[in-house]
């Protein structure tokens, strides 16, 4: 707990250069923060891996007394729908990410770059889905979705995932565009770029780091969504979280552990692939002039 508090102190208020300041002053605190962070994020994963290979693991043994591949065989078996659930989760997460980009980037641009009447209200409405309990909104949407035949379908689930995902994309992009100098686009036009080429060669590279971060957020939000999938999917659309929850509830720790590992892998993969962009943050084109 104290380690966590320390971590919060480190990255909390001074987001300009938290590492540099702590590094300069107290290296001990810095290391404590890193260890605390690792313990908080990685440690819970370790028992899961053991569980997935355990055949017998009774109190008070520190490690399983017998190992087996039963859980992994069950996960691989077609009767348990793990492959289907992984496919569904992937399709939904990708669709949600693409839709979030299509809606969130223009919205973020409008909020970050322009001043307009009612901007505060729009900003409030955009974060509303995060503030208002999602379940309440989803219950209302459910009746609409049934009427329009969107319930129990992949598309319906994807659309409802936009409720928690879109605000993040929009907020990230409005931050990116707040530091973006649109004069670069004028310059490109003046040098002979059509509007489309300007977007592709100038705007896109400039916002790419933020775009990757936003896409990562939305992908993971959709990937781990449970309640909305259950409600709108009506149990017909099986995703990994649904499957995971079933096994966890049925008390089969081994299979739940194996599934949890499967569940975590894509997130970690995406994170590793995009870590380069995460560290450069929102390095958009602002004030590069002199």
């Amino acid at each position, binding site marked *: 707990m104290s380690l966590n508090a320390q971590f919060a102190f480190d990255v909390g208020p001074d987001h300009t250069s938290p590492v540099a300041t702590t590094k300069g002053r107290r290296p001990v605190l810095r290391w404590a923060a890193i260890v605390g962070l690792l313990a908080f994020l990685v440690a819970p994963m370790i028992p899961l891996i053991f569980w997935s290979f355990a055949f017998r693991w009774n109190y008070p043994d520190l490690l399983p007394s017998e190992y087996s591949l039963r859980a992994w065989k069950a996960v691989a078996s077609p009767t348990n729908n793990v492959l289907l659930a992984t496919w569904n989760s992937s399709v939904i997460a990708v669709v949600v990410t693409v839709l979030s980009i299509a809606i969130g980037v223009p919205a973020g641009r409008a909020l970050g770059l322009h001043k307009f009447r009612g901007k505060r209200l729009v900003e409030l409405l955009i974060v509303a889905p995060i503030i208002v309990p999602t379940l309440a909104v989803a219950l209302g949407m459910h009746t609409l979705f049934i009427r329009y035949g969107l319930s129990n379908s992949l598309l319906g689930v994807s659309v409802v995932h936009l409720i928690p995902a879109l605000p993040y994309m929009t907020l990230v992009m409005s931050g990116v565009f707040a530091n973006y100098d649109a004069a670069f686009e004028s310059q490109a036009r*003046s*040098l*002979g770029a059509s509007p489309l080429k300007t977007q592709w*060669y100038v705007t896109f590279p400039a916002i790419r780091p933020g775009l990757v971060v936003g896409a990562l957020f939305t992908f993971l939000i959709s990937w781990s969504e449970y309640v909305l999938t259950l409600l709108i999917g009506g149990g017909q659309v099986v995703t990994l979280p649904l499957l995971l929850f079933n096994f966890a509830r049925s008390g089969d720790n081994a299979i739940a552990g194996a599934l949890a590992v499967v569940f975590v892998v894509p997130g970690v993969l995406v994170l590793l692939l995009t870590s380069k962009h995460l560290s450069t943050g929102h390095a958009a084109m602002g004030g590069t002039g002199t």
Partner: protein
Amino acid sequence: MTKVTLSNLTKVFEGKADPSVDQIDLEIESGKLTALLGPSGCGKTTTMRMIAGLLRPTSGDIQFDGKSILHIAPEHRGAVMVFQNYLLFPFMNIRENVGFGLKMRGVSKSETQGRVREMLDLVQLPDHDDRLPSQLSGGQQQRVALARALIVQPSVLLLDEPLSNLDAHLRDEMRELIRRVQTELGITTIFVTHDQEEAAVLADRIALIFRGKLQAYDSPEAYFERPANLEIARFFGGVNFIPGHYDGERINTQVGSFAAPHAAIANGDAVLTIRPEAVDLGVGGDNSVVGTIRSHVYAGRYARFVIDLDGIVIEASADPWRVSEFADGDKVSVRFDASQIWVIGSSDLPRTSGAGTGSAELSGATSPQFP
């Protein structure tokens, strides 16, 4: 070689009552360097952006060689703008930045490569092709920006405050470069500046803009030597103004009467102007009066004296060694070289100030009091 004609060009921004650019008529000669000069916020950059196609005029027309180009998108106009802060694309290296315009036009890679090198030579940048803009100094960035604009062989080159972000010594260098490149390529070049000296050094002709209105369009010498009115005289660094009455040959002031063969008006209420350099100290005779030295500044290459002429304060420049000749508080004889006196009408100040508030501030800020 392209002649640029602005006719009745007007821009009113949404939510603003006064036009930012107000019915400007201007014919910019082909192959010449023309300055749009004026204080900040006078509409000169707005005018330039309209020529570049980045802003749509509210009314009026812009023509290149007699053909209206208002309906042509900026990327097809052939008018390339170089922005004040260069706007080099930060994620492209120098070569990619300079070659950007050719890439957009679908020019082959091998040809682009050759022309990029040519352009970097032209702006005297050594072959630092692979560096990113952030690794360059301000002067180098400016050169890259210039090369990037010139590579597409624009018919009109638009420079927005090309020297304002540079240190003093880089300024001279860049000024030379722009002048040389412009003469070499003969591109019709329009640049925006708020600095009258910069405009004078660089431009063939200066279009002076106050409050969105074209005040005058003339050669640099004309503005300094024969300003049409008090506001222009002040903007071009005039400091000595003595009100009086002009009869066509002499101007009679509260300080004295001076022979004044050169004037902007025939006769009437007038203001005598004279550059500090044309005020002779310690010389009597015709056109001379006696004043008191209030203070002085030694500036190395010259010495400047502030002299009180019976309530009217003027400045005089003298050779630097003469600083030991006079002490503050001394009475000194001051002579105005008649050939250097320029008389302008004092009545045209209220007329030009019109609705604007700018000139009211100007007239309040300077030393002489008008009767």
